[in-house]
Each structure stands twice: as C-alpha cells, then as structure tokens.
C-alpha cells in the first residue's frame, strides 16, 4: 500500500461549552488526529465523550453556547479555523458533508426530498433547476432508492426510516465530497436496515473515493467498517490505532474494559466484565488522566496528564501504565 495523501489534520482541538451556571465544559480537550484520502476513521466512545462535538467542530457548526477555543483543523492544506464564514460555507456540503443519527429529524419536514437535495446541488455546482433535478434523481438512484423520480416529490414523513437515511446520504454525497462525516448513521435503525445502510456507505465510499469519519458507540460496526480507530473518553483521545491494533491488542484500560463489557454473538461469556462507576460529569472531569477514578490500574502518577505512548506504527495510547495491561484480569472490572 503506497502512502495515501493527508486529507485532514486536526491538531490539539479544543471545544468548550458554557452551561447556564457559566461553568466551562471542556467537551473536547486537545484532540489530535489525521485522516488520509479514501480511508475510514472511526471515532468511538460513549455518550458525552466528545465524539459528536469533534465532528461538528470540523465543520465549525458548534452551537452558540460553545466555542472552538484552540487548535488547528487543516483540510486539504487549508486551516478551516482561519476561513471567513462565507468561505466555510463553500466547504460545507461540497468538500465535507455530514449525515446524522436521526434521519427523521435531520430532514426538514416542510420541504420535499427533491427540494432539499437540489438546494445543495444548485448552491455548490451552479447549475439550473432542471440539471439539479437530474443530478438529484441520479443520486437517489445511486443511494438505492427505488422510483427516484417519484420520491423527489415526496416529503420526508412519507418515507421509512431507512429510506430517509438513504435520502440523507444522497443529499450529502450529491456534490461528491472528499470527506463524509457520518454521526451515528445507523443508531436509530433496525439491525437489518443498518446492514443495508452500512453496505451503501462502504459501496459509495469506494465509488467516490472519499474518506469517511464514522462516529459511533457500536464497536461491532467499527470492526466491520473502519481502517483506523480513535477511542475517546471524556473529551480526550485515549487510544488510536489500526483496526487490528485496537481489537487484537487494546492497550488502554478503558478500551480493554469497553471491549470486555460488550455481550457478543460469536463467543460465550459466562459473565460480562463491566467498568465500575459512571462517565464523569463534564463540569467535573478529573484532573490528569480522566479515566483514573474508574481505572483498576490507577495510582498517584495518574493525577498527571498522560502523554501519548507509541506502541507500534500508528498505535498510540494515552496511559501511564499501558505496559501493565496484563494485570487487567476479567475480575478487575467487575467490582460491583
């Protein structure tokens, strides 16, 4: 495999939110990663770990109560944080597209599917209504929607959940973006529909040669789809590596705990491991390693922030004690 070119370079990204009590929430705190052309990178973590905020920050779509307070987002050589609003709008939907978790709320209920897809096409490709319609119809067909000409005239609520997500994908890909950000694209769908949608994303990724950032909490999907995996916990990256690294040689206690706590179809588990405690409240993240109050390996050293340790090529872990991972027996995680 010759080295693919760098598409997206995120350096030390920080996004802070402010709640009603004026407290600072460090939702994303110093996140660094790269995405290369054509690959699929998965951002994995539990709710509140900052994965969705990271993805919205890439498009500078953070809500008004939050702000990108630091870092660089370099996309195809341009620092997105330095662009004007107008230039940024030119990138959104054209070079970087996004699909969301809940297709029924992500589509505007009062406009037809056709209106919504054509809007993007007219905006970015400067074509007339008629041409846009043809492109939109073609995209729906590519997205596997039967009878696309008719569907263009329908409203979102007339489609099933799976069809809506296909329409979302058609809309996102209508300008052939270089990067697709898929934020929990199948979480609200049934497992058989999920399989269809994942297959579609994989298929289109190859056809269009685009990179995909897949945001999900489902490690099963990750094992199936991702080339590279970034595990996040409480606003920080805890481990990053290739698919095989993460699943066959997980090194951060959190990754290990997470993998052991999933009920699995393919093997027999007498009892699941489970990580004790709960995800910390973003206002009161622990200092130093944020996992330390749930970690069986934690000791006073963990009050200092861990730096990244390189395990092998492309496999990083942010943990002081990753070399002691063998001590993590199944029992260490089940002190209920």
């Amino acid at each position, binding site marked *: 495999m010759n080295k693919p070119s760098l598409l997206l370079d995120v350096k030390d990204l920080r996004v802070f939110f402010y709640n009603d009590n004026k407290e600072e929430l460090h939702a994303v705190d110093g996140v660094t990663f790269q995405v290369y052309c054509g690959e699929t990178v998965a951002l994995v973590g539990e709710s509140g770990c900052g994965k969705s905020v990271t993805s919205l920050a890439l498009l500078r779509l953070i809500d008004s109560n939050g702000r990108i307070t630091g870092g660089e987002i370099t996309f195809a050589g341009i620092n997105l944080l330095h662009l004007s609003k107008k230039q940024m709008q030119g990138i959104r939907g054209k070079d970087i597209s996004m699909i969301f978790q809940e297709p029924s709320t992500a589509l505007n209920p009062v406009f037809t599917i056709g209106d919504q897809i054509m809007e993007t096409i007219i905006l970015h490709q400067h074509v007339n209504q008629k041409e846009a319609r043809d492109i939109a119809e073609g995209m729906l067909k590519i997205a596997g929607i039967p009878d696309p000409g008719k569907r263009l005239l329908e409203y979102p609520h007339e489609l099933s959940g799976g069809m809506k997500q296909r329409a979302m994908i058609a809309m996102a890909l209508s300008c052939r973006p270089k990067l697709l950000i898929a934020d929990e694209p199948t979480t609200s769908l049934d497992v*058989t*529909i999920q399989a269809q949608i994942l297959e579609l994303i994989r298929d289109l990724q190859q056809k269009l040669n685009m990179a995909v950032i897949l945001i999900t909490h489902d490690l099963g999907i990750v094992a199936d789809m991702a080339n590279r995996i970034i595990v996040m916990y409480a606003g920080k990256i805890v481990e990053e590596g290739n*698919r095989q690294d993460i699943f066959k040689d997980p090194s951060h206690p959190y990754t290990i705990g997470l993998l*052991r706590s999933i009920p699995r*179809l393919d093997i027999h*588990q007498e009892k699941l491991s489970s990580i004790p405690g*709960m995800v910390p409240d973003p206002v009161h993240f622990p200092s130093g390693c944020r996992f330390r109050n749930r970690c069986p390996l934690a000791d006073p050293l963990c009050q200092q922030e861990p730096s990244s340790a390189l395990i092998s090529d492309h496999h990083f872990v942010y943990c002081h004690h990753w070399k002691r991972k063998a001590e993590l027996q199944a029992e260490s995680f089940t002190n209920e």
Partner: protein
Amino acid sequence: MNESVLLKTKHLTKFFPVKTGVFRRTSGWVKAVDDVSFQVYPGETFGIVGESGCGKSTLGMTILRLIEPTSGSVFFEDRDVTTLSSSQLLRFRKNIQMIFQDPFSSLNPRMRVGSIIGEGMTVHGVGARSNREFIVRTLLEKVGLQADSFDRYPHEFSGGQRQRIGIARALAISPKLIIADEAVSALDVSIRSQIINLMADLKTEFQLTYLFISHDLSVVKHLCDRIMVMYLGKTMEITTREILFCRPLHPYTVSLISAVPVPDPDYHINRILLLGDVPSPVHPPSGCRFHTRCPVTRKKCETDEPLLIEQEPFHFVACHYPGTLAISVPLILTSDSTL
C-alpha cells in the same frame, strides 16, 4: 418438559384499529400481535427478539393487560388473566412487574426515590408500614445505590442509576415474573454491562423469572435461556439459545443473526442483506409474512401461511422450508474464550 408452567399465552392477539374517513370508522387493523402462543417456565429467562414494529413490546404490555388483548388468553400459574375483573387485576399485578426502556421517562420526576420504590408496597400492603423504609433502603443497596438515595429526586441520577431505581421498584413487591422491555437498550456500553450483570445476579438471589424483550440479539444471547423470534406480529421461531444460535432454521432468524455487527475484525459471516423495509403491519403480506424479504422464498410462501411446527425437539419454526438458509459460522456458545 413436564415442569410447571409459570406463564402461558394462547393465541394471544392484539389488533389496534386504524380509523379513517369522515366518521372515524375503523377501516383496518394494525396487527401488532397476531396469534402468539408461548410458555415461560419458572426460573428461566425467556427472550423475545425482533425489529421495531414486530409487536414485542405490545406483547409484553398485553400480558399485564396494560393493553387489553383483542383475543386469546394469558395464563399465569393456571389462572386466566384475561378474565380478571378490574379490581382483581390490580391485585394480580403484584405477581408480574415491568422494567422499562427509558430511564428518563420511567420515573416520576416529582416523586422522591423512596416513594417511587415504596409505592407498590403501599398499594399491595407489603410489609408493615414502619418497616417499609428499611426494606426500600435495603433494596437500594442491593441494586448498587447508596441508601441515602432514598430522599433524592430522579433527576439527580444518571441513566444507569435510574435504571437501577426502576429495577428496585419492580423488586419491591417481590413479583414472580419480571418483564424487561428493552431494559438495557438506552444505556451506554459500559453501563449496559453493569445492568446486565445486576439483572443476572438479582435473578439468582430473588429466584426470578424474566421475560426479556429486546431488539439486540447479542444481549438476548447473553441473558436468555429460550428465545422467541418475532416478525410483524407473528412468531417465527422459538427454541433454546444453544439451538437458535447454532442451528437457526428460519430464514429470518438467519438473516438477523448475520446482520449483527460483531466487535472482531476477523469474524466473517456470510452477511445476508435483506432487501427493502419491513412491510406495514396494517397490510401484512399474505402467506408467510416474511416472504417479501425472504432470500429463499418460493411460490407456496406467497399464499400459504406456515404453522409453528416443532421441527425437532424444543425447536418450533414457522416456515415451509426450514433450514434452506443457514449461517456459515456456528456461533460458539459453550466454552469460555478469552478476548
């Protein structure tokens, strides 16, 4: 199996009317649960699995008559639940309790945790009044919460902790059967395993029987002894866990198993992609309800409805051509493997 039966449904059916037109006449029926019969034995965990809209939640509610069944009957310890008068029914509900999916909507936000858990005890007169607070505090500790949670409000707790409160509420009146409706679906991965383990522990401690309703095959496989697969209000397959995951006979079960993502990059199963969407339960397909999406459908499936037949011991399948479709990787169920 000539054990005693704890819960039995016979031809249980629930149709919801679809009202249209000027006079809101009933023009059709949502066939949510259509002629479902199964038995639950004491001490087992019986799983009901299926995709959204298959009627599994309706089924759970119908058993407690939270939704009145259209026809059919439910027997609990040989007593027909469907014939109980409304006052008898209130007393009967002490036997069966539910754990709900949404930890946020299942607890009354304006009641303290103590009264949420104690309410059932008051209603059914369980324990002496003076003793109830002590029982509730003990229960709180049993489900892994601090006893001082007693005086706090639900919003002070996280999703996982709320689910523990919901479990304590169900246990407070010592039911014989617990219906868990998607009880762990809304939780994060690391919290989910905590609750799964808790439910397993409590089962042993209180000698419970579970009816576990879920869309998640992995969880069902982990927790359940016997499993029923539903599709569009109908039973497709009922059997023990070992048989279901090693030798599923219904094409729907096979497709479902093959679609589950497994967190192992080296796991390769022949993924069977079902085409299209689940049809509307108002106009379910004729014949076998699965025939419109079935990869091995034949002529007969379009017209004749297959009956639920015991194909081999303890293995009931509703399919004209059972076993035509098989999974390529028999799933390991016995030996413990390490990660």
